[in-house]
């Protein structure tokens, strides 16, 4: 065994004296005392769980009242196959769903669009019409299992489909819970499923928030993502700061329509990443919770405590996992889950050990699910609220991380605001330069990655992962199903509903009521996108290095 391993690098003899700086740029001392906490701002901004500034958690009892929701990212092929996987995960104790859509769906193309060729059902479930939602969620109790839709560019259509599907099954839209990702600004920075230019894209996010505030007040129409900005190269402080700038941009859009902040801010949620240094990550979340509460209370005049809550899914961690020695990702995932639980996340999900290779297998998803289940059920993570509070190190770093985030947010404002910086490609350029430096540091060994730049193994069998099959036949079946929907629907009704989508887009009205009617008439994702694109145009990516 040993002869296959390269010799490990010995730590430098003066390692203890070397400066340790975390990814956010904060120097870490070998020892923290009460004086460090005082010097960093003291214990004054911590408070109690469930009380402003919510650093210790948004609820007084946190997991003692209810453990985090477990919500693995799932979806592939067609709605029939995905429905089966959903039921498998629920049968194994998963408490929520997080739906992956294929790329054509995400960018508003129907499965028979020539541009969709070779991509239908590949990285997620294909959705063309309301019929697909009816199949995908068949037999799933939407009161017990909340559904999160990972959809952005085509979010108006898919939110409408979810609400329409719920109504059709007898659920009251006023009580229906669930979440849509629907954070388009971060799609321009990373992930890339934009459709329309920046300004109308923000307008559409505003439409969904305004519509849900009135028609589906328990539904969370937006989950603002630092996650993908971090994956694109941002450090942890930037991840939170950029996400808050983006969340503020959406809030400003809705406030400009005359809504009160407390009418909608309580349904804004967040999606953050969990890979990296355990203490930097936990303090990142504690600090950010206090900062968001402060922003909502002081800058936006929110009165309802719910408006000040940084509700979050803290999960994934894909950027920290490695292609090399994939089984080690199971262990990384366990540490990431620990971070998420120590940070007081409302919802957790883990990237699977095989996810750098393929769509996760049932086996890999079950391991991730069990990893999360261990924490509350065997390891005591649900016993007491915010267990790291009061540690000199944790409280100092929490104060320091908050200051870093405030600095980044002030810099964004100084440069003209997040919308301008994203439209110009400035944030994209900044994080991509950082990703390049990180790659160089990993290749040189300056940034340690176990199995990558130390303890490498050249053994082939250690890279064995079972690949998820892609079946052309599934595409054919999806296109057939789409054709059937088009043939069977009331053509005049669908046509009229689509015309109204275009008309409302032209007048600048909220397009959500028209989109609701259109999806109920079985108009497709692609048809609705085309109506909107006729008015809004399509985004052209700024190329900037």
């Amino acid at each position: 065994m040993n002869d296959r391993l390269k010799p490990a690098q010995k730590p430098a003899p003066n390692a203890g004296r070397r400066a340790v700086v975390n990814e956010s740029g904060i120097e870490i001392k070998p020892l923290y005392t009460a004086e460090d906490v005082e010097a960093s701002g003291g214990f004054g901004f911590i408070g109690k769980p469930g009380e402003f500034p919510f650093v210790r958690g948004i609820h007084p009892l946190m997991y003692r009242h209810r453990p985090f929701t477990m919500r693995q990212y799932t979806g592939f092929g067609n709605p029939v196959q995905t429905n089966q996987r959903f039921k498998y995960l629920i049968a194994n104790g998963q408490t929520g769903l997080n739906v992956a859509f294929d790329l054509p769906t995400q960018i508003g193309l129907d499965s028979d669009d020539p541009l969709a060729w070779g991509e239908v059902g590949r990285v997620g479930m294909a959705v063309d019409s309301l019929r697909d939602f009816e199949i995908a969620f068949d037999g799933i109790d939407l009161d017990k299992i909340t559904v999160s839709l990972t959809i952005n560019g085509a979010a108006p259509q898919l939110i409408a489909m979810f609400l329409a599907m719920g109504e059709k099954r007898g659920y009251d839209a006023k009580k229906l819970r669930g979440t849509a990702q629907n954070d388009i600004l971060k799609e321009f920075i990373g992930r890339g499923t934009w459709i329309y230019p920046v300004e109308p894209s923000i307008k559409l996010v505003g439409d969904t928030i305004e519509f849900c505030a009135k028609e589906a007040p328990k539904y969370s129409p937006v989950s603002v993502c630092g996650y993908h900005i971090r994956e694109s190269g941002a450090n942890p402080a930037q991840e939170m700061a950029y996400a808050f700038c983006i969340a503020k941009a959406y809030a400003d859009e809705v406030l400009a329509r005359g809504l009160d902040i407390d009418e909608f801010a309580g349904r804004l949620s967040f999606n953050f990443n969990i890979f990296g240094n355990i203490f930097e990550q936990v303090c990142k979340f504690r600090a950010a919770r206090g900062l968001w509460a402060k922003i909502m209370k002081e800058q936006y005049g929110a009165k309802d405590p719910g408006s000040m809550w940084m509700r979050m899914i803290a999960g994934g961690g894909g950027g920290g996992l490695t292609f090399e020695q994939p089984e080690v990702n199971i262990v990384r995932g366990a540490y990431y889950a620990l971070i998420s639980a120590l940070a007081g996340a409302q919802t957790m999900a883990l990237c699977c050990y095989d996810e750098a290779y393929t769509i996760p297998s049932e086996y890999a998803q079950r391991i991730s699910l069990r990893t999360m289940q261990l924490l509350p059920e065997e390891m005591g993570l649900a016993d007491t609220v915010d267990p790291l509070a009061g540690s000199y190190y944790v409280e100092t770093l929490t104060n320091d991380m908050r200051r870093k985030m405030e600095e980044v947010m002030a810099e964004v404002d100084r440069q003209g605001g997040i919308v301008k910086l994203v439209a110009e490609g400035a944030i994209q350029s900044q994080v991509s330069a950082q990703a390049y430096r990180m790659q160089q540091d990993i290749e040189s060994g300056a940034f340690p990655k176990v199995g990558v730049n130390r303890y490498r193994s050249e053994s082939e069998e250690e890279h064995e992962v079972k690949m998820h099959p892609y079946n052309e036949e599934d595409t054919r079946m999806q296109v057939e199903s789409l054709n059937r929907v088009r043939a069977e629907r009331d053509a005049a009704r669908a046509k009229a509903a689509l015309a109204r989508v275009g008309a409302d887009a032209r007048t600048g009205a909220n397009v959500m009521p028209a989109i609701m009617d259109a999806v109920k008439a079985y108009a497709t994702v692609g048809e609705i996108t085309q109506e909107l694109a006729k008015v809004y145009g399509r985004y052209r990516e700024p190329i900037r290095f």
Partner: protein
Amino acid sequence: MSAERRIRIVVAKPGLDGHDVGAKVVVRALMDAGFEVIYTGLRQPPEAVARIALEEDVDVIALSSMAGSHLPFCQRLKPLLEEAGLSDKLWIIGGNLPRQDHDALRTLGFKGVFPTGSKLGDIVGFIRENVT
């Protein structure tokens, strides 16, 4: 080619895949290595890749694919590159490329295959060695 002329490379994001972290990292590494790089941005159909490669008179056509559609895409790109008279250029591909597909990619004409975990220096070195 003449000694004065720098190697020109188009880096393209094929298909609908939005994962561009790796493509942009590679672009920066190629620029730092002294190559002239044209980055296409996201969502390039095969026709666009062939057209840009021809118009920009490149020596290297590089694709970055993370979302699994590399084989169907390259099967459609190959005849288009051939029709455009670009068979003698260096074709390379990187990204999430399962080992079981490497031979098929090489058979399609992609001389350099750089799966996840490849080093930037190896990509640069391969281009220097193979552009004549």
